[in-house]
């Protein structure tokens, strides 16, 4: 089959990109290889592990289960856009650091993208809600306890402004 290319424009972390992509390129690979934003990690590549989670128009999605061409004219947010302009950590990033919420760090970008969107929608979550929201992200190092602690601490800090 002839290769099938598409010209797409999309916004990633507020920056506009124009690229030519083959239709079968996954959004995860596009972000990592074409845009060289390697903070988005790729684990299972079939939607189980959550490492590749990015925000599509503000909603967490698996970037390995989307084609890059489908992101045309949409807004993507990745881990690279999470710190503020001064390079200061997002409260959840800081809390993950403070609470030892990561060890190898491979799952961390996916967890941060999932849980920052979750906290935007649920500023005062209970522990059960945090665990439910985390259920789509596998972490093989921490046992999750410290991640849950970090999310609850970040929620409290974000509430108190």
């Amino acid at each position, binding site marked *: 089959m002839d290769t099938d290319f*598409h010209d797409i424009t999309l916004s990633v972390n507020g920056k506009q990109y124009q690229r030519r992509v083959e*239709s079968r390129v996954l959004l995860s690979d596009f972000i990592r290889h074409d845009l060289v934003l390697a903070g988005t990690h790729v684990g299972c590549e079939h*939607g189980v592990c959550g490492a590749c*989670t990015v925000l*599509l128009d503000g909603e967490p999605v698996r970037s390995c289960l989307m*084609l890059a061409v*489908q992101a045309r004219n949409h807004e993507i947010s990745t881990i690279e856009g999470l710190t503020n302009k001064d390079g200061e950590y997002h409260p959840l990033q800081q809390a993950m650091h403070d609470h030892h919420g990561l060890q190898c760090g491979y799952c961390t970008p996916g967890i941060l993208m999932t849980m920052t969107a*979750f906290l935007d929608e649920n500023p005062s979550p209970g522990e059960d809600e945090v665990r439910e*929201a985390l*259920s789509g992200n596998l972490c093989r190092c921490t046992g999750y306890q410290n991640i849950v602690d970090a999310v609850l601490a970040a929620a409290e800090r974000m509430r108190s402004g």
Partner: protein
Amino acid sequence: MLLSDFQIAKKRFDFLTWGGGRLILRERRLAHGAELRFDCLHASAMKPAAFKYKAATCLEHALSLKAEHGDDAKYLAGGQSLIPTMNFRLARPAVLIDINEIRDLAGIRPSATTTRVGPLTRYRALQRDAAFARLFPLIGEALPHIAHPQIRNRGTIGGNLSHADPASELPAIALALGARFHVRTATQQRWIAASDFFVSALTTDLKPDEMLVEIELPSPKPRTGCCFMEIARRRGDFAIVGVAAMMTLGEQDECADVRLSFCGLGETPVDASSAADVVVGSVPSEYAIRDVAAIVQTMIAPNGSVHATADYQRHIAGVLTERALQTAYARGRDGH
């Protein structure tokens, strides 16, 4: 996965469940002819085979593209089952017709007696619609069991039903609710009852040029209690068994009508409502409900899997039947 593991698994099981994920692959649908290629041996080949991507701009456009390409083309809705299958190269459609930009296909349209749901409506949109969850508590209760938040942000009701995974929750719920499906080709249309829609594993009554364009859900009658329950190894995994129960009560709290269906038991969702006939006409006692569970256990023919033997599934189906019918009855009686 190593080739040897894959071959062993392929010989031993009718179904393959991948990675504890949300994907069941049926053996006879894996191969195109005898030459099944094991591209997944190479890391770089975990990605889809080449295809033509067509973004449909409206329903008519999508239907005409499907008419043109037929079985070579697949509709791409949420992609949460299709894309992983393509990543493994177990599905290799020549053409993908992306319907995600057809906004008219998403949405919930309630009326007096029925609610019509667009096929592109995402699980998350159903979850966020409090009125919908109140009207169809069966669906509201099942949604948190469907995969994970990230999957629910993309996955669609129409994609789920058209995929027809027998372990999936919504097909069983569609049976319990007595849903009807509006399907269209470029030139024709028809309605299919849920009871006629699910033909076998991953196979529906849809013809190659047809598309599910609307789901019609009849509103439950007053004094109807609903309950959805499932047992899965982990939250978000496919259910070992799941049950959907609906019981409508009369003025004396007697059972006037009851619906009972299951997911995870065999080739299609299973309608076991007839097993519950014994409770119709009286206030369902604990013993009568136990009888229903026993009848269910003789009716079903679970396949068993690497995670649960057929006997275990049968046992769970009985336990869930009792719990779900008791809960549905109590909810109908207490009015929630």
